[in-house]
């Protein structure tokens, strides 16, 4: 497929703010701030970050459940208007798998009704719906006898398969997976991840995989973007990012991943000196000035409080937003 490798989805400067009530006052919560990303066809982009970094909001923005305040989105070469409600055709191209297998399924609908609903909305005939539901159920490994069952009769892993089946019902090109395996046991996670990679190969799907679990993201992603407080702080291929993290936040994240190998453990020499820095994520309602990470950064400088760092492109899809690096440095350092 010579289509593989071309950019399927491009986000340019996408922003989303919510208006909330904080302590009696009305405030603006900056959930996603000028995010620029791209995903290549047939590949998986992993997005990692802590809770509250805006990953889920970004997922919903991509798929059209939230309208953006700013920014552009180009999908499959065509611009998608993100500040307005999507058209039915546009919805068909991008689907989402949700985190909680239980609340993502209507408890009063059978499995085949849940999976068939998107097709019903798009106006397919009953025969076409039944056929497609049967196909997609066998794709995800659910026996046909489950079609008339209710969600409460299925296990968590099976419910998540139903969610995946529903996302695939309309044959989308892009599937956004918002913490799709986080609510499952480790062994089931493995099965579902393998199912996802199989489906990707079979149907040439493009994934945006959002998770806070670094191991899972590493397992499934080709490229990774790291988010902090609504901004992308680093991007690159999974291999490079995990082997050679450049942004201090990425380094902090990777050092805190529990590992089975005692020689790799950094437990006894933590990177962040918690006596002088905040170890809590600041609130997105009132983010720190300049670089949002500076309150937790062990390398913070004066300029970090004054100026927000721009994305510095280090070549081959790698970029980092940090004052420690500059464009001129890039030329000096050998690739």
């Amino acid at each position, binding site marked *: 497929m010579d289509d593989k490798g071309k950019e399927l989805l491009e986000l340019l400067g996408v922003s989303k703010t919510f208006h909330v009530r904080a302590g009696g006052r009305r405030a603006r919560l900056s959930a996603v701030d000028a995010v620029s990303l791209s995903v290549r066809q047939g590949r998986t982009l992993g997005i990692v970050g802590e809770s509250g970094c805006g990953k889920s909001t970004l997922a919903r923005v991509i798929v059209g459940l939230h309208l953006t305040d700013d920014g552009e989105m180009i999908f499959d070469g065509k611009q998608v208007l993100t500040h307005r409600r999507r058209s039915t055709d546009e*919805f068909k191209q991008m*689907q989402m798998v949700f985190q909680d297998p239980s609340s993502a399924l209507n408890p009063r*609908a059978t499995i085949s009704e*849940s999976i068939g609903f998107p097709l019903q*909305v798009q106006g397919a005939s009953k025969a076409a719906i039944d056929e497609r539901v049967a196909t997609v159920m066998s794709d995800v490994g659910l026996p046909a006898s489950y079609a008339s069952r*209710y969600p409460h009769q299925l296990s968590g892993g099976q419910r998540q398969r139903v969610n995946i089946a529903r996302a695939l019902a309309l044959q989308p090109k892009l599937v956004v997976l918002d913490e799709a395996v986080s609510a499952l046991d480790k062994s089931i996670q493995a*099965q579902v991840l393998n199912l996802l990679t199989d489906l990707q190969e079979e149907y040439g799907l493009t994934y945006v995989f959002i998770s806070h679990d670094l191991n899972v993201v590493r397992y499934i992603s080709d490229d990774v973007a790291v988010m902090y407080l609504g901004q992308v702080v680093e991007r690159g291929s999974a291999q490079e990012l995990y082997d050679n993290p450049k942004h201090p936040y990425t380094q902090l994240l990777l050092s805190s991943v529990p590992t089975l190998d005692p020689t790799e453990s950094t437990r006894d020499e933590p990177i962040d000196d918690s006596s002088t820095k905040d170890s809590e994520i600041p609130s997105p309602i009132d983010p720190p000035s300049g670089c949002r990470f500076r309150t937790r950064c062990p390398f913070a400088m004066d300029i970090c409080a004054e100026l927000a760092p721009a994305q510095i492109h280090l070549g081959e899809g790698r970029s980092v937003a940090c004052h420690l690096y500059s464009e001129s440095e890039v030329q000096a350092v050998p690739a």
Partner: protein
Amino acid sequence: MTQVPVLLDKNFGAGTTAADRAEADRRRDEWNAARTSEQSRSFWSATFRRFLSNRVGVVAAVIVLLLVLGAIFAPWITSADPLLGKPTERLQNLGASGHLLGTDEQGRDMLARVLYGGRLSLLAGFVPTLGAALIGTTIGVTAGILRGVVGTALMRTMDMLYAFPAILLAIAVGASLGPGLTNTIIAVTIVFIPPVARVAESATRRVVVQEFVEAARLSGAGRLRVARSQVLPNVLNDVIVYASSLVGVAMIIAASLSFLGLGSAPPAPEWGYMLNSLRGMVSVAPLVAIVPGFFIFLTSVAFNLASDALREAMDSRL
């Protein structure tokens, strides 16, 4: 890449290759086929089975059923005339010949009056409940989905009506509309709409934030479609349970309105009216005088117990 460990578990030893998974699926299908008890069971049949296991609920439901059947088949149960009586036979006691429940102060057969009156009272119980359920659910679901100014306006209007004590509001509406069964039904419906709307609105708010509603929007469905197909079935649970407990209350309010002369006009054998007219005869024929009150009491308690049992049956983890 780290090796992901494979555990044998209720996924039948499914491994990481497609062949392993196919084998696991085959094993799972076999297991499912062997477990005949785990058949696909619809929500209502499962609820029905649970309801049947609740003895109090079943007895209450049977009593309700008997009362309804008695009211419908009154002409076949007794040949006595509920509206015309022989004054020479007035105030006969229970069990008198030809009059199982005695006669009232005008000599009319009490059994006939109770059975025929049951039609009026049961109508006055069911119709307002049904009407309030339909209208109240519409208001509540609309307010819960739209929220904002519209939702607030709707719910605060409901609150204004809800602030009145039910019986006073019913009397006020009933008095302004005038006597008659239809006006009673309208009055009671109006009294019941606000509480049903409140139940529906709070259930809607709970359902609307669930992820399956977001997932439904992802298929391109408009808000109305999402409301009808995803939100409404989940809200109806709560509404049905609440509304079924209102039937008994409706009957009591209708009986109270009749008692005050605002309901069915005489000689219609509405139970509340009968209670009023026999009130003065308590010292003369006490057992006969309490007959209509007993039936009001019986119907109301039976409905309440049946609706409690229904709530339990519907509540089991779904």
